[in-house]
Every structure is written in C-alpha cells, then in structure tokens.
C-alpha cells in the first residue's frame, strides 16, 4: 500500500501535465468547433471527400456540424493522447527504478517483487483513470455551450469507458516492456515505437481494402467510435483480443520481473 501511494505522489506532476494537455486540447478543439457548428455548407464538402481519406482521419460516419459528430472525430486524437500517457507511465514506472538507481533500495524492502509490480501497476492505472475522468469532465463541461442532446452524454460516457480499456492495454504493454527489456533504457523508446507504429497502422488500415486485416493489429482500431455512437457496443472479438493482450503482458511482466537480473 505504501508503494502505491508513494508512486501516486511521484507521478503526480506528470499526471498534472497530461491533464493540462488534455484540457488545452479540448478547449482549443471546441473553440475550433464553433466554426463548424450548424454549418450545412461544410457538410456538403465533407460528403464530397474521398472515402479513403475520410476513413484515415476517422471522419466518415460523423456529422461534423453536431457536437456528437465533432466529438467522434476528436475521439481518435484523445485516444492517441491517453494512449501515449498510459504507455509512458507503464514503461517508466518499472524502469525508472533502475535508471535512477533506486532499485537496490526498493527491492531490499520486505515486499515480494510481484507485490511491487502490483502496487506500481495499480498506481499507474489510477493515474490513467484520473486522466480519463478529467477528459470526460472537460468534454462534458465545454460541450455544454453547444446545447448537446442526451445522445452526446451517452456517447461521451461510453466512449470514455472504452478509452480506459485502451489505456489499460497500453499500460500493460508498457509494464511488460519495463520488466522484460534487458536494457532498462530501451523500454521507453520501444514503448513509444509500439504506440506510434500501431497508430500509423490504424491510419494505414483504412487506406486500402486489402489492408483491412491490419485493424486486428492495432488497438486504435479496436474501438470504433461510430459503432459506439450508433449501436452503443464494441465488437466482441476486439474485446477478447484486448483482454488477451492485457493478460499476456501482465503475466509476462510478473514472470520475467521476478527473475530479472537487475542493473545496479
């Protein structure tokens, strides 16, 4: 328990910074939205765009002139920001002990290594939850200026719940990398490459029909916002893949970390 609170405190500053970014992003985003709001001409332009291009920006299936549609487009960017935060926290929270040379101290405490991982993962997950809550709250408050209907609030809440799952996927990948990478310094850069790689994949997957199978490889494609909006569900197959990734990564982290040869 102490490790948990200690980690929360240590990561508090980073959490504040990410919250600041999200707040800024939502406020600026919605200020841009005021140009779209209830502007039928823009809808005409969007209808004329090539489907592949709109797909790659996640812009089809949404009517940009309504709050709901605008949030649907912003959703992909929010997923990216929250994903970056999660994967960074996940990889950093394990590997920083070796980087800052505090691992000797942490591991001489009378706790098992697995307890350490549990506490650290829980702390990072708490941060992810707080960040998602802040994003949710900001979108709730800022959108209020545009008199959204009930549907928006439902979409927002369901969408953010799903983003928490996305965060948890990336968090567990980060924790896994932090425990597995032989060189602790590499963990962060590998984590980021995975995040960026999957993001590019999610963009590419929409470009060409033959590349459709790529969507199974990138968590960013697992949670289709238009499906959440229109049918308020996600494809069960993606849910299983997500759970699979989380379980495998976390199990891998526990197993490898308990026999890790630490760099001291």
């Amino acid at each position, binding site marked *: 328990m102490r490790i948990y609170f200690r980690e929360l405190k240590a990561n508090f500053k980073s959490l504040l910074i990410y919250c600041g970014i999200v707040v800024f992003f939502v406020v600026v985003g919605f200020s841009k939205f005021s140009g779209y709001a209830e502007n039928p001409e823009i809808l005409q332009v969007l209808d004329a765009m090539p489907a592949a291009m709109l797909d790659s920006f996640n812009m089809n299936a949404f009517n940009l002139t309504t709050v709901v549609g605008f949030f649907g487009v912003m959703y992909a960017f929010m997923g990216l920001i929250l994903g970056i935060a999660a994967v960074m926290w996940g990889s950093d929270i394990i590997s920083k002990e070796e980087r800052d040379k505090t691992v000797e101290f942490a591991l001489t405490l009378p706790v098992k290594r697995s307890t350490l991982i549990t506490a650290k993962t829980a702390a990072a997950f708490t941060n992810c939850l707080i960040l998602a809550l802040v994003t949710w709250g900001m979108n709730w408050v800022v959108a209020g200026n545009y008199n959204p209907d009930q549907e928006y609030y439902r979409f927002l809440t369901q969408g953010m719940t799903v983003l928490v799952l996305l965060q948890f996927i990336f968090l567990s990948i980060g924790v896994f990398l932090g425990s597995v990478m032989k060189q602790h310094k590499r963990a962060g850069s590998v984590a980021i490459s995975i995040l960026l790689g999957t993001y590019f994949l999610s963009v590419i997957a929409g470009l*060409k029909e033959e*590349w459709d199978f790529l969507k199974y490889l990138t968590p960013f494609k697992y949670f289709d916002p238009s499906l959440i909006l229109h049918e308020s569900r996600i494809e069960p197959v993606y849910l299983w893949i997500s759970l699979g990734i989380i379980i495998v990564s976390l199990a891998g982290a526990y197993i490898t970390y308990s026999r890790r040869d630490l760099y001291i």
Partner: protein
Amino acid sequence: MNIFFHEFKSYLKSAGIWSVAIFLIILIYFSAFNTIAVEAEDITRLMSSFPEELLIAFGMNNMNFGTLLGFFGAVFLFCQICLAIQASNYGFSMLSIEERELTADFLLPKPISRGKILTAKLLAAFLALTVTNLSVWVSSFFVINLVRDGRDYDTNALVMVLGTVVIFQLFFLAVGMVISLLMKRVRSVIPLSMALAFGMYILNIFGNMLGENTFEVISPFTQFDPNYIINNGSYNYPLAMISVSVILIAIPASYLLYQKRNVASAV
C-alpha cells in the same frame, strides 16, 4: 575530434532505424496511391465547384490527392512527425545524458573547453540527422518514381519540400537542447521529446482545421507545410523566418547556458 566520432558512432544505429522507418512509411503509403488517385481525381473536379472560402476554412483548398505531389504532401507530414521526434530526442539527450549516466565526471575534467564539447556534440548530432535527411531524399525520389506510372510531377517543388527538412530538424534539435539546459535535471528524454514533437503537431492540426493564423505559427509543421510549398512553388518566408530565428537564438543561448551550467556529478 574524438568526442565527435564517439558521439556520431553512438547515433548511427538510431539514425539508421529512423531512416528505415521513414522509408517504410513513404513506401507503404505510396503503395496505396494508385487506388486513391483514381477516386480522388473525380473528387478534385467536384471540389472545384465549392466556394473557395469554405475550402480554405478546412485547409482543403490545397489538398489534392489525385496528383503525386498532392499525395506526397500528406505522406510527408508523417515523415515530419518522425523527424521531429528524432531531432528532439537528440536535442534533449545530447547534453543531459552525461549527467544522467554520471559520465560528466569523466568528460568535463578533460582538457577541452565546454564550448568545444558542445560544438563536437552538436556537429555529431547534426551529422546523424543529416544521414536521416539523406534517406528522406532518396526514399522520396525512389518511391515516387516507383509508383508514378507515367505521371509527371514537378521536380522543383519536390526539391523545395525536401529542402525544408534540414531547418525542421535543426529547430527541434536546438529547442530540445536549450530546454534540456534550462531544466535542472532531465530524468528521461522521451516524454519531453514526445511532448515537444506532438505538441507542435497538434498545434498544426488545429491550425489546419480552421485557417486562422494564431499561435500555431510557432509550429514548424505549419511553417513548412508541404502543401503550401507545392501549391505556391515557394516557401512561406515570413513563417519560415520564425524557425530560423528560433534556431539562431537557441544555439548561442545553449553555449551560454552550458558554460555556466552547474553540472550534477556523482559525488
């Protein structure tokens, strides 16, 4: 000279990986070009019937996926993200790594001035970035010629777009370096460089969504917008000057800051 070679060697692997990544991005995107181009040609015709102001508001007035260069503009943006992350990574880590790994204790007692150390490191990082820069040039020409399929493109405009890379890289290198010197201690580099690169990228997206120039002009992504260069056949000089002056301020400032820096040591 020793420092220079030592530094450059430590960058080689990373510069190679980034070069390959950028090559793959360009290649993969362009392999979808022929599918999209057919569709896009119809769209372009359709879009020309819309009022100009509306298209400007979307930043779509200068988007043309039907042509090789129009498509290249979209692909190049992704290359820019990679270049930005790489350059800011180097900038943030260049000097801070010595303090983090406690090797400053070894480096600074050597009979060389701090200015010389900084020069050697800066040149090495710049050379490593130039390796990636070259790869961007080669990959772009190679891939475009691979998929052009008899289509023509304006070589001049392509050269101009690629010419921005060097300033673009220097901007992130210099800004990263100066921030790392302003900080008391840089614990880890990647969160910082991600924040710098993605922050600038997101600023640019917002700028594109509605074309009013406010604070997004500080973003090199806006200053070196490939679509602008391709369509106008010239750089956006007033905006480009912002980057150049930032570089010209940041580098001398780094020398000053590094000379006076209270370097953390092991003991």
